[in-house]
């Protein structure tokens, strides 16, 4: 395996993740508890949106990390295709479903947030619509990586898709915003007024870090599982 990166060797990665997982899981739990407490008891209700603004503390971090998650997928794709990084494929396989779950969370919480203001369950708001397309890109990545008999083939095909996807994501976002201005000039989910007051900003940041740690923890754990799966496949192949 030419071009070995420190963590590239699967066994070395597993030793690292075995040590790191308890810490990141613990940190995630603490941050979530603190964040949720602040979200409900520290942050004041918004003068306009009243209590529904509390949905923001889950909706916004989910949006951030699903977009960052897709960029991460593209980075792993480049690592696999350009530097033949052996772990990138497994980490991408591990990360895609987590990204999709974050995007789904963002979509559902977003529709609940918009519900009181528009009386409809789904709002064709620019950000939600872009997130819906991103969700499809995640599904496409997951489906493509599992659509081949050989997992390596699926990993590489999904990596190419992720790279093209990440180039198109900003264009999709722009086109949806452009489309939104055509049909609904009034912009929708203002983040609780123009300047975000610190009493809202701090809980939001805590929740954001909590969600990030959740993403990291899940990816580390799932990558370990993918390594195990690949090892089982290798053993089965070698035994033939």
């Amino acid at each position, binding site marked *: 395996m030419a071009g070995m990166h420190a963590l590239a060797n*699967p066994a070395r990665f597993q030793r690292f993740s075995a040590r790191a997982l308890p810490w990141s899981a613990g940190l995630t739990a603490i941050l979530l508890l603190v964040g949720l407490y602040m979200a409900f008891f520290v942050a004041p209700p918004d003068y306009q949106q009243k209590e529904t603004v509390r949905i923001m503390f889950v909706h916004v971090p989910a949006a951030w990390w699903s977009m960052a998650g897709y960029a991460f997928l593209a980075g792993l794709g480049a690592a696999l295709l350009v530097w033949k990084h052996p772990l990138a494929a497994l980490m991408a396989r591990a990360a895609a479903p987590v990204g999709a779950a974050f995007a789904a969370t963002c979509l559902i919480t977003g529709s609940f947030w918009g519900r009181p203001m528009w009386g409809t369950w789904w709002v064709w708001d620019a950000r939600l619509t872009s997130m819906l397309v991103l969700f499809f890109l995640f599904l496409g990545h997951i489906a493509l990586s599992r659509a081949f008999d*050989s997992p390596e083939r699926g990993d590489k095909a999904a990596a190419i898709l992720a790279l093209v996807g990440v180039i198109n994501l900003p264009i999709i976002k722009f086109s949806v915003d452009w489309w939104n201005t055509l049909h609904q000039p009034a912009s929708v989910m203002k983040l609780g007024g123009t300047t975000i007051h610190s009493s809202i900003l701090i809980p939001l940041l805590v929740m954001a870090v909590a969600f990030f740690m959740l993403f990291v923890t899940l990816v580390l754990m799932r990558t370990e599982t993918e390594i195990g799966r690949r090892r089982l496949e*290798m053993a089965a192949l*070698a035994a033939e």
Partner: protein
Amino acid sequence: MPALNAENLACRRGGRLVFTGLGFGLEQGEALLLTGRNGSGKSSLLRLLALMTPRLRGSLTWTGIEVAEQPEAWRLALAWLGHADAIKPDLTVRESLAGAQLLRKGRLDSLDHALGRFDLTAIADRPGRYLSAGQRRRAALARVMLSGAPIWLLDEPAAGLDEPSRGALHLTLREHMKSGGLAVISTHGDIHLPSARPIDLGEFAPSADALAEDWS
């Protein structure tokens, strides 16, 4: 340094190490006959030489230069015959062969000699879908002959050929060798060439621990 030199080649396909430590040297006018059981990696080696299947390890040089460094020039020097004949059902034999010429050399030479050699003149204007398997294989061989490429990579060229066609194949191969051409041919014992050296891929099969170290 032989014209075509391979050292310590290793190849992995479908997650399995197929062969390792494989080397050979071919001078102009020489042919390599790949033998070995099914799955021993004959096709994989041919595809590796054609830069289709990635090379896990090892070096491959043509006229002293590593082929991966100038893939375009290397591809120009190759004629390829895969399992499938690449004969389009909707194009006639003549159109397929002329197209292959254009794609390879960017110009058109006369097809008649090759058509005659493989007894295709009568069906030259018949669409590919009406050809039998043997006829399609002969058309694919005619394409190789027309390529004028110095190196021929042939995957079981004699498979499915009747006696006269096999004779035409051997004649074409001998001519190619005599004119200083090289060939790597995978075969099941149906190719008999004086200047050909057999190589059994079974000898380069990976040992048990070679497999294990891959995914320690």
